[in-house]
């Protein structure tokens, strides 16, 4: 089976699992909403401040959400030992990982796109002029979180206290993604909106580096 077909089969399986159970997306959406609401109590921003701090809070909330929602990606396979079954398939082991990365990317992007208008309303930012560029940042950020998050979820699944291990491994590693996507968004929501190419480059670099590392070394995580 070709790499693309194997990966898209895994992707289909992940999406089907989620749409049958509907556990992950709804819970994560509500989680991010709660965090966004609590931030407004913790910092009590004025209108001007909220435009400035908003993007940072949004990305912090998304990072936390990612470190929680990527957990089941491999843990779910453990309860019935289905990862062993997947490994038996005569396909490139990276295609299993790639399918899961793609699924997690779509889940995260879905959460981001639903939350974007809510965020814009809560934190008083104008979206219409910069919508395309904001979506680009969301896509690049979601890619960074989902690639490293899926790999680290496979790492954490083999550890004790795995619910705590994933955030511990993931959050410091995602510092560059947090900085770049936050700064880029602060620029976009500024007056006048400003595109900072350097942060887009950093985001692309993170995505490329994480993806390359996952491609080169990820398959070791799947072996027995």
């Amino acid at each position, binding site marked *: 089976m070709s790499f693309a077909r194997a990966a898209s089969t895994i992707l289909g399986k992940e999406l089907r699992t989620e749409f049958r159970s509907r556990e992950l997306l709804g819970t994560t959406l509500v989680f991010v909403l709660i965090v966004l609401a609590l931030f407004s109590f913790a910092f009590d921003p004025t209108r001007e401040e909220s435009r400035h701090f908003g993007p940072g809070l949004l990305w912090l909330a998304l990072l936390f959400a990612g470190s929680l929602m990527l957990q089941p990606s491999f843990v779910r396979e453990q309860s019935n030992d289905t990862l062993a079954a997947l490994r038996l398939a005569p396909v490139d082991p990276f295609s299993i990982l790639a399918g899961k990365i793609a699924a997690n990317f779509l889940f995260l992007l879905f959460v981001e796109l639903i939350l974007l208008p809510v965020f814009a309303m809560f934190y008083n930012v104008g979206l219409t002029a910069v919508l395309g560029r904001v979506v680009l940042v969301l896509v690049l950020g979601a890619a960074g979180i989902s690639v*490293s998050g899926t*790999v*680290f979820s*496979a*790492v*954490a699944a*083999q*550890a*004790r*206290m*795995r619910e705590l*291990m994933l955030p*511990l*491994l993931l959050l*410091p*590693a995602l*510092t*560059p993604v947090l*900085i*770049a996507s936050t*700064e880029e968004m602060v620029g976009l929501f500024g007056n006048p909106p400003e595109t900072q190419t*350097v942060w887009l480059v*950093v985001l692309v*670099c*993170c995505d490329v*580096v*994480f993806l390359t*590392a996952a491609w080169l*070394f*990820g398959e*070791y*995580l799947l*072996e027995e």
Partner: protein
Amino acid sequence: MQDAEGSAPPVRAAISLGAIVAIAVLLAAASYAALVVAPTERTMGLIQRIFYFHVPSAWTGFIAFFFVAFASVAFLRTRRPKWDRLAVSSAEVGVACFTIVLITGPIWAHPVWGIWWTWDWRLTSTLVLWLLYISYLILRMMVDDPERRAVVAAVFGIFASLDVPLVYFSIWFFRTQHPQPVIGDGGHLDSRMAWVLMLCWAAVLAVMAVLIRVRVRLEALRAEVDALRMRGSGTSR
């Protein structure tokens, strides 16, 4: 750990007495040079002498973290447990070095800048780096099966080391864009200061080498004990 079972070669002493004496002499000479020989810095005074151990610790820590990446790749390619032992030993020594950096830094900063900490790019990225490798060590504690532990730690170690340049660049760019306390570290070093710094670095490097060696041996002994215990309880796999 297959090689520790059965006819494992006897573990040699990690380091000879002569080497210990030589390193002790080197360390004493370096301390003497840093505290007495090096000229007192004009504006900062005596507190600047902490720099002779602060900077070498940071350089040595980077080298130790480089060993982690190298040993992790080598382990995944060869599957020989000695590389995993080198990785964990280097990570611990690197974390120790950066702990020294993070402790001596504020001790120096308080009298000189008037504050213990500032979110300057160098301090911030050092802190994130330290946290990354602390996570690596915690991960190792949390995986029980030695072979799984070696593999997942190697993959995470490689990811962490690839992440380091991204962390440094993004924090550097982020911080230099924003107003921050001015940190005067420009100018050039007095030649006496420079050789004292090099002597101290040599001493710290020697200590790193000894610690890694001793730690690798300890890890080998642990693996041997685990293997013996497993055989004793009849659950050897």
